[in-house]
């Protein structure tokens, strides 16, 4: 090898590390490009062309789930329906799974032996069986076995539970909402101002001058005052009702209904991911050294303060990175919807594919959508993560 100071021209070029590095990269790149070109030529040989023009064509199939869609709409809109359905399931799923995971994770660490064992059994059962088996069980063996609509189980609310899904009451906007929403806005604005003052004072004099109760009071009292001032109720509760139509067909009118496929998928994803998040939370809390809690107690912090000010901020730093990957997993796992017939992005793409025969184009659309969603989640969570990590001195 050349020592510093030796004449560089003595090294023949085939042993010059700089030349070799460039050469190796060129060879590698050429190999990859050659494989791609070979694949493309095979594709061409079959008389296939790559074009997205089919997206504007009429889809001529029906989609029963999600935003409004007619068979005369285009393929592009069909795909949009699928994307929105996926986002809907993933967004609600992430929130619910986090709640479930948080509760079970803390339950597993509970000093109560029974509670901790129940959490352990739940986590072990769920983590050691495939999600798809759980989904099949939930859909075919639980939800499909619910009574028919005519004998629907009426839960308090009233919510109707049947093998066609769940219908629950839902608040809807009335006309006077236009007069009411300024109150809502004012409430949020006041709360934000209070929080800012609170934080500033805490930095200046070391403790918040305004109690947190006032923030909540703002958020509740101002809209309540508005409710009383505005003529008529700004919101009304749309209560579902079982009606028999002219042909003897039973239907539930009003409320918001979740199809049985949506319910099964959402439940399955939440239960599955919840078990994983529980382990993440448990590991995070356990990662905070015991000395931290003891030191805080020695300084006279209360149990709640210890949790809020000492343990949680440190645990969150450990929790957030694996939590991101659980959110990503949930989003990706929502593609299993096709197995139980929920029309998510992947299931709609399959239909598009069967209708149009555009395999490669549709595949790139699927990949692009999932990658975009993954990147968005990582981006948001990385920002959160960064804010958490800055706490270090």
């Amino acid at each position, binding site marked *: 090898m050349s020592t510093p100071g030796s004449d560089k021209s003595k090294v023949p070029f085939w042993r010059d590390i700089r030349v070799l590095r460039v050469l190796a990269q060129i060879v590698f790149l050429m190999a990859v490009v050659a494989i791609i070109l070979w694949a493309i030529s095979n594709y061409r040989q079959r008389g296939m062309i790559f074009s997205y023009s089919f997206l504007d064509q009429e889809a001529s199939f029906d989609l029963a789930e999600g935003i409004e869609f007619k068979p005369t709409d285009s393929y592009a809109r069909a795909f949009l329906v699928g994307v929105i359905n996926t986002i809907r399931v993933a967004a609600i799923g992430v929130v619910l799974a986090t709640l479930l995971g948080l509760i079970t994770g803390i339950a597993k660490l509970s000093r109560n032996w029974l509670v901790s064992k129940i959490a352990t059994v739940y986590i072990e059962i769920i983590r050691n069986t*495939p999600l798809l088996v759980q989904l099949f069980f939930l859909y075919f063996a639980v939800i499909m076995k619910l009574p028919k609509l005519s004998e629907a189980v009426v839960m308090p609310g009233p919510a109707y539970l049947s093998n066609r899904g769940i219908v629950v009451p839902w608040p809807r906007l009335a006309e006077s909402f236009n007069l009411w929403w300024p109150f809502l806005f004012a409430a949020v604005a006041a709360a934000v101002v209070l929080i800012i003052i609170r934080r500033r004072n805490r930095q200046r004099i070391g403790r918040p001058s305004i109690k947190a109760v006032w923030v909540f009071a703002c958020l509740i009292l101002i809209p309540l005052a508005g409710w009383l001032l505005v003529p008529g109720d700004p919101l009304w509760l749309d209560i579902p009702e079982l009606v028999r139509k002219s042909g003897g067909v039973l239907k539930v009118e009003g409320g918001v209904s979740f199809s049985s496929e949506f319910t099964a998928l959402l439940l399955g994803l939440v239960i599955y991911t919840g078990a994983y998040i529980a382990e993440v939370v448990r590991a995070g809390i356990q990662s905070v050294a015991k000395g931290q809690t003891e030191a805080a107690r020695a300084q006279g912090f209360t149990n709640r303060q210890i949790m809020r000010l000492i343990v949680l901020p440190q645990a969150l730093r450990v929790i957030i990175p694996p939590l991101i990957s659980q959110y990503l997993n949930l989003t990706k796992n929502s593609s299993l919807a*096709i197995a139980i017939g929920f029309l998510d992005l992947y299931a709609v793409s399959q239909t598009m594919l069967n209708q149009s025969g555009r395999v490669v184009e549709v595949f790139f659309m699927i990949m692009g959508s999932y990658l975009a969603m993954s990147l968005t989640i990582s981006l948001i969570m990385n920002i959160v993560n960064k804010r958490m990590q800055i706490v270090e001195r």
Partner: protein
Amino acid sequence: MNDQTDVQMPPRVEVGVLGWLKKNLFSPWYNALLTVISLGFIFFIGRVILLWAFRSARWEVVTTNLKVFMIGRYPSAEAWRVLASLGVVVLLAALTWAFRKAKDSPIRRWLVLAWIVSFPVIGILLRGFGEENPFMPKVSAEVWSGLLLTLVLAIVGIVASSPLGMLLALGRRSRLPVVKVLCTIYIEAIRGVPLISVLFMSQLMLPLFLPPQIRLATVMRALTGITLFSAAYTAENIRGGLAAVPRGQYEAAQAVGLNKALMMILVILPQALRNVIPTIVGQFISLFKDTTLVVIVGLLELLGIAKAVTGQREFIGLHQEVYFFVAVLFFICCYLMSYGSRRLEKALGVGER
């Protein structure tokens, strides 16, 4: 010490059944409340499950179809070949377990060789020779189904993805920018999309990009998809193992005059791989669970067979029993494997120096 007046009673010791109960279940009042709620919950769930399992469930759907669940459409006359393959694996596993303490005996080396040889042997056993062969007629891969197919997919998937994953991991750590970027793109793109879309690609897209002469069986295409998918995850695991090897090891290897390739093969990879064995086992467990996804592309692995069984005329609609059975089967396999991996982790002393 003789002063009897100052003797204090010892603190109340919480031992025995009652002490344990009080300490663990009823100590502050809210814990008692939680305990009561939990007991009610267990009672409710337990009652529902027990009533179902012993009163209303029709288990004959499982008992009559047991063989179908295990080997599916594999011809019954040839079932002994599956058993023989299982026997080979069990024998090798037993030998490996028996000689786990004999660190330097030559038998261990032979065992490694036997494991490697067992793969083609089992492959031939399962697949057979020609159509007309009187001893072992051909059983095409299209017929493999049930738990057999699940195991084949998972094991071949993890084994085939290991070398690819190792190359990708080395590529991602490479100092050549082109290699690094391409490997990173591959790994991140695969990890960013669901397995089902990769399976879809291997089922429908792969044939379009291959010359028309090459026809892959459905199982082979599924295996390709699983391998390509799994390789990206293996790569990340191995990369983690590589990162855990201290820099001094690289420097020491270079100092004794090893070149790049020898340094990797003799010094770095053995340590890196030892670090990642538990992670790889974890990945195998999740791959084992993920093989159920091939049911979506039409293969009859364990879950696919289960779905088919629920359509049998005499057992139509017995979803609860069938899927419960499948779930229990998966649970037993996965739980044993994760238990084994925890033991392995301890035995290997990962994280200890």
